[in-house]
């Protein structure tokens, strides 16, 4: 078997239909959408359609869609624009399990003098809403809470939170990079002010993202320049990638059912299979409120990087919450915030599927992975110790 790709929360395969749609705009249709001549204007019209498709996926208006270069740009823009709009407010709120795109921006702002609140989660990765609401004040400028967690797939009740936050007159932003394309959206019916998404997480290429900005929300651009994106993001358009993202949004909308049926079934097959065949193994995060494609599985007493490199020998691509893989030395801040013990945090592997995965790929992982864990446990002093202790007990 070639590559078995189950790392779709890291990035996804660009859909063949998407490649086909974008290629002419890297070739013969090289016009500038801002030009007055029809050679450029045709490109502009194509972007308009792409914008409509993204708006349709989100249940938003086309003019509420701002194309950006990535999810991180969307996040940074949303946060900084809000602080710019409310210069007197010096308190900002987010969660302890946020992606670095938001987490590190908040830490940066904290060093700049902003008071920051990082809302904790419980052992299942669910947000402490009571803590969140208790910490909102008149001084709070923005609350930014991810829609779904990239490591565990746990979904936060973002629409409910937005209602409460907006009720107090505070701007609400959500990083929905992992959620868009996996669950249905209808922003029209929500009170969310801003939402970030990233193209390469939903089968468009890397280098394009979107910031949804609710009509009427106070805003100032992050990239100041030309009139592009309604003057809200300067810079000549990344034409081919925007068109690609439009196509991938259209595909995502029509694949939503498959994502929640077949992909979910494959994920559950993988999860159940691993829990049944490998002892001392459990799922990180609340399985009731979770993306259909993600599972984070803790294999106790072994270390994640070793698992990944052994799986790599079979062409299986996944990722881990372990310290060693990322270059940082501490295990994932998400798993630590959930209070996952060290016995399990270092050996946690995230599998994230897509519509391109097949049943035979899942069978292949179920065949190859259990012996890898067994081999590493044979080497692990903690596993040996654990076994001796359980033998003594019985």
């Amino acid at each position: 078997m070639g590559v078995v790709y189950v790392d779709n929360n890291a990035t996804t395969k660009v859909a063949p239909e998407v490649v086909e749609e974008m290629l002419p705009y890297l070739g013969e249709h090289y016009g500038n959408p801002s030009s007055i001549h029809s050679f450029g204007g045709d490109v502009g019209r194509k972007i308009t359609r792409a914008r409509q498709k993204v708006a349709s996926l989100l249940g938003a208006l086309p003019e509420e869609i701002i194309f950006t270069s990535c999810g991180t740009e969307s996040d940074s823009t949303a946060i900084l624009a809000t602080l710019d709009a409310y210069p007197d407010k010096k308190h900002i709120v987010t969660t302890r399990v946020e992606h670095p795109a938001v987490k590190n921006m908040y830490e940066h702002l904290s060093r700049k003098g902003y008071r920051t609140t990082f809302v904790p989660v419980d052992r299942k990765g669910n947000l402490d809403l009571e803590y969140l609401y208790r910490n909102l004040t008149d001084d709070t400028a923005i609350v930014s809470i991810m829609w779904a967690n990239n490591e565990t797939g746990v979904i936060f009740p973002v629409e409910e939170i937005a209602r409460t936050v907006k009720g107090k007159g505070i701007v609400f932003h959500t990083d929905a990079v992992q959620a868009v394309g996996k669950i249905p959206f209808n922003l029209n019916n929500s009170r969310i002010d801003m939402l970030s998404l990233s193209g390469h997480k939903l089968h468009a290429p890397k280098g394009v993202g979107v910031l949804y900005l609710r009509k009427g929300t106070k805003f100032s651009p992050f990239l100041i320049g030309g009139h592009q994106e309604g003057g809200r993001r300067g810079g000549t358009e990344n034409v081919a990638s925007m068109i690609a993202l439009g196509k991938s949004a259209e595909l995502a909308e029509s694949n939503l059912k498959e994502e929640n049926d077949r992909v979910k079934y494959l994920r559950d097959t993988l999860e159940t299979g691993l829990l049944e065949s490998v002892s001392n193994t459990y799922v990180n995060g609340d399985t009731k409120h979770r993306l259909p494609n993600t599972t984070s599985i803790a294999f106790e007493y072994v270390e994640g990087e070793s698992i990944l490199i052994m799986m790599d020998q079979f062409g299986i691509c996944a990722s881990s919450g372990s310290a060693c893989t990322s270059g940082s030395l501490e295990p994932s801040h998400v798993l630590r915030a959930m209070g996952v013990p060290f016995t399990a945090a270092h050996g946690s592997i995230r599998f994230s599927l897509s519509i391109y995965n097949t049943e035979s790929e899942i069978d292949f992982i179920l065949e190859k992975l259990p012996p890898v864990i067994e081999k590493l446990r044979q080497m692990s002093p903690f596993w040996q110790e654990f076994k001796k202790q359980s033998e003594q007990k019985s």
Partner: protein
Amino acid sequence: MWDYNSKVKDHFLNPRNVGEIPDPDGVGEVGSLACGDALKLYIKTDDQNRIKDAKFQTFGCASAIASSSALTEMIIGLPLQEARKITNDDIADYLGGLPKEKMHCSVMGRDALEKAIADIKGEAEKPVEGQIVCECFGVTDREIERVVKENHLKTIEDVTGYVKAGGGCGKCQEKIQVILDTVTGQKKPVGKKPSKLTNIQKIRLIEETLEREIKPSLQKDGGDIALIDVEGDRVFVKLQGTCASCAASQVTLKHYVETRLRDLVTPELTVEEVQ
């Protein structure tokens, strides 16, 4: 993805001498679950003090397993006094080099070897020397000084790569810089002033330090600590929350709580846990 060379990969995928020696002459154990890697090295010697057999058990990343495997291959057949001279660089060289962020794996190998040999010689286990600098990984100033000297390290990143210090929360990086400057002769170490406290002052200071410094830090990880009693220089505490069930709680207690109290109250204190 780390750039592991083929020899490192080979020692990881086909590790040599994995397992346990049932009646070893020496055992060396380093690392912990909390730190993300640990190595248990077993040594058997012959009547001429030569290493007859060595086996290992390792929890950790690919380079930790490869370093352990390489170490056993290097020491089998060596007289103890020769084995004693092996440095972490020798282990890394034997593997054809390790990524610099992974040098701590070779340091772990050397540390386990030293401990195993000390165990054979019947030497008492050395108490932790020096003051903890990196609280995340429990690394002391002495350990940092040693790797800086032995490996001619120049930057904080180098130190993190070799002993992990500074790679967690990053709060100790200034202290690491001071050690680097001191070892490389750029600055003189600053001596600490001895102080004499009355019992009342001491207890109050212990309470304050627990409240201000230690509790918030433990609470971040869902743990907590309560002061039970103070008798002379013995401080009795009870660990609570996630600390109470944490495998690394003894490390936390000795390396963090005790060190902070010694630093901020008086160096004579010992901390003991009340169950």
